[in-house]
């Protein structure tokens, strides 16, 4: 087997998909798992049978893991609160993510620890989404007591991807609306992980630097590209980029992770550290960057792949892109098997897989190397990468969003190199502002100019005839 991890991951994914669509009980799958393990012990000597049984075991593991996520603990809030009983609840717990303030409203994920119903106080668990109808300065880990009505998320959305399912996949089962500041009490205790708190503090600092040197709109775009923070991107800009198929540049992805790994390696090289220490420190920086950017699916994928490649380099082994990609998928799906049905997960992996599989074949087929001009080769290569990613994600986008965007291939030829430049200059701006603040303003001007250029090109491309079509 050339890509063993990839095959095991496919088997694991099939197990998850099977259980999602077939009605099979947990204990039935558990019995099958025990049987499979016994067979595995007996089949150790038989190579092919053993391989087949390992694949089956992975299949069952996937099925079992998904089934397990459906069972909530006895003290989970979903089990304690009745369906739409419209009652006021008092909850104690702590904030589980970085609160967002938008339009004079604050929202965050709240990890419940205690539920109070009339005079009864009971231990509770689970996550809820809290919407405060007013701005409030809160931070990750802050311990709070909240009062308000709990309701289940609405089931709006298209083609099976409802908002409710989206929240359920994140482990969020209720939404609480807190209308008055009197209904929230800060307990002045921080219960979050210290490392995450520090990373989020650093994220705030970086956001502050970006906002200091750029105008609001370019700052919003750069914050999305460098930190994955999309709250300041106007809807019009976002929708325009969706139409041109270039919205992927507004999320932190493999490229950003690559830039961090490269920059760290370079910085450590300058101070002449030995290779082993350099690689280990670069891997640690990748993990920190993953936390800073909120550990979304594309970042986790890129981080796991990056760490895999770094360690292959450390142990002087040839890194295999399929195995690295499979390791990333397996890591995410073991943590939360429901992510398999998340559109973001599908888009992230489909695009990378498509580029990895399709691009080299197209390149060979079209014999690009015969061209003498390096610029022409670069243009053709960019076109093929863009085309591969577009083909890979076309079906998912059509099914989920009903959008067909032929202009994507053309748009990406201009937008992706520009986005690369912006990301690089964005990272340079942040580093310069921290080390040499005097020179940072000039970097800010260039970055701002590049972002303006990107927005103008995008607006132009979207206006082309047959650029996009909603189906």
């Amino acid at each position: 087997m050339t890509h063993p991890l990839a095959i095991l991951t496919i088997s694991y994914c099939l197990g998850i998909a099977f259980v999602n669509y077939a009605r099979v009980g947990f204990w039935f799958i558990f019995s099958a798992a025990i049987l499979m393990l016994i067979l595995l012990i007996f089949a150790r000597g038989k190579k092919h049978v053993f391989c087949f049984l390992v694949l089956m075991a992975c299949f069952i593991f996937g099925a079992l893991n998904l089934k397990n996520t459906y069972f909530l603990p006895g003290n989970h809030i979903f089990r304690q609160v009745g369906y739409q009983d419209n009652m006021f609840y008092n909850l104690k717990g702590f904030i589980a993510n970085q609160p967002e303030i938008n339009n004079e409203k604050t929202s965050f994920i709240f990890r419940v620890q205690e539920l109070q119903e009339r005079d009864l106080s009971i231990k509770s668990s689970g996550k809820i989404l809290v919407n405060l109808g007013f701005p409030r300065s809160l931070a990750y880990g802050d311990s709070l007591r909240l009062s308000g009505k709990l309701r289940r998320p609405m089931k709006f959305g298209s083609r099976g991807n409802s908002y409710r399912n989206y929240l359920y996949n994140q482990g969020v089962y209720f939404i609480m609306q807190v209308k008055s500041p009197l209904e929230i009490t800060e307990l002045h205790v921080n219960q979050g992980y210290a490392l995450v708190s520090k990373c989020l503090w650093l994220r705030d600092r970086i956001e502050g630097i970006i906002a200091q040197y750029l105008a609001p709109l370019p700052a919003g775009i750069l914050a999305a590209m460098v930190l994955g923070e999309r709250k300041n991107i106007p809807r019009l800009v976002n929708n325009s980029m969706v139409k041109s198929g270039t919205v992927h540049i507004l999320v932190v992805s493999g490229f950003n992770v690559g830039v961090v790994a490269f920059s760290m390696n370079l910085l450590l090289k300058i101070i002449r550290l030995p290779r082993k220490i350099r690689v280990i420190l670069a891997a640690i920086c990748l993990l920190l960057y993953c936390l800073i950017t909120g550990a979304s699916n594309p970042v986790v994928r890129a981080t796991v792949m990056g760490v895999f490649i770094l360690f292959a380099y450390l142990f002087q082994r040839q890194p295999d892109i399929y195995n690295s990609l499979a390791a990333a998928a397996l890591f995410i799906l073991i943590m939360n098997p429901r992510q398999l049905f998340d559109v973001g997960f599908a888009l992230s992996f489909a695009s990378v897989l498509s580029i990895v599989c399709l691009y080299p074949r197209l390149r060979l087929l079209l014999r690009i190397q015969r061209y003498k001009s390096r610029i022409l080769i670069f243009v053709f290569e960019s076109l093929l990468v863009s085309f591969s990613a577009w083909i890979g994600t076309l079906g998912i986008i059509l099914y989920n969003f009903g959008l067909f965007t032929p202009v994507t291939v053309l748009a990406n030829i201009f937008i992706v190199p520009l986005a690369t430049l912006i990301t690089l200059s964005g990272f340079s701006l942040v580093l310069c502002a921290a080390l040499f603040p005097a020179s940072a303003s000039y970097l800010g001007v260039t970055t701002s100019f590049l972002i303006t250029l990107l927005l103008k090109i995008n607006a132009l491309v979207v206006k082309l005839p047959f650029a996009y079509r909603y189906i």
Partner: protein
Amino acid sequence: MFNLTKEEKRVIVFLLILAISGVCLNRMAKASAKVEKFLAVPAGLAKMNINTVTLDELIDSRCISRKLAQTILDYRTLHGDFNCLEGLKDIKGIGKHRYDKLKELFYLE
């Protein structure tokens, strides 16, 4: 003089290009209003002019429903151009919550 590797040289050149371009752009923006306008993000890219926007543009933005777009334009035809964005609140069906969302979409020239 400097014992730099290939990558280090590339990084230094890149940073210098960024800084020098920044200085040039800054100088040009100070000297000419046209350049300054070119360097700034046009308001029309992130928002729509509430007094000139058409029904097709509103629908095409995918930010508001067809019905609401039609209501806003009907109100504009009936009452004339908006003097301030707060005027949106006078339209039937636009409360504080919806207005908070709409004000991010429009600008007034």
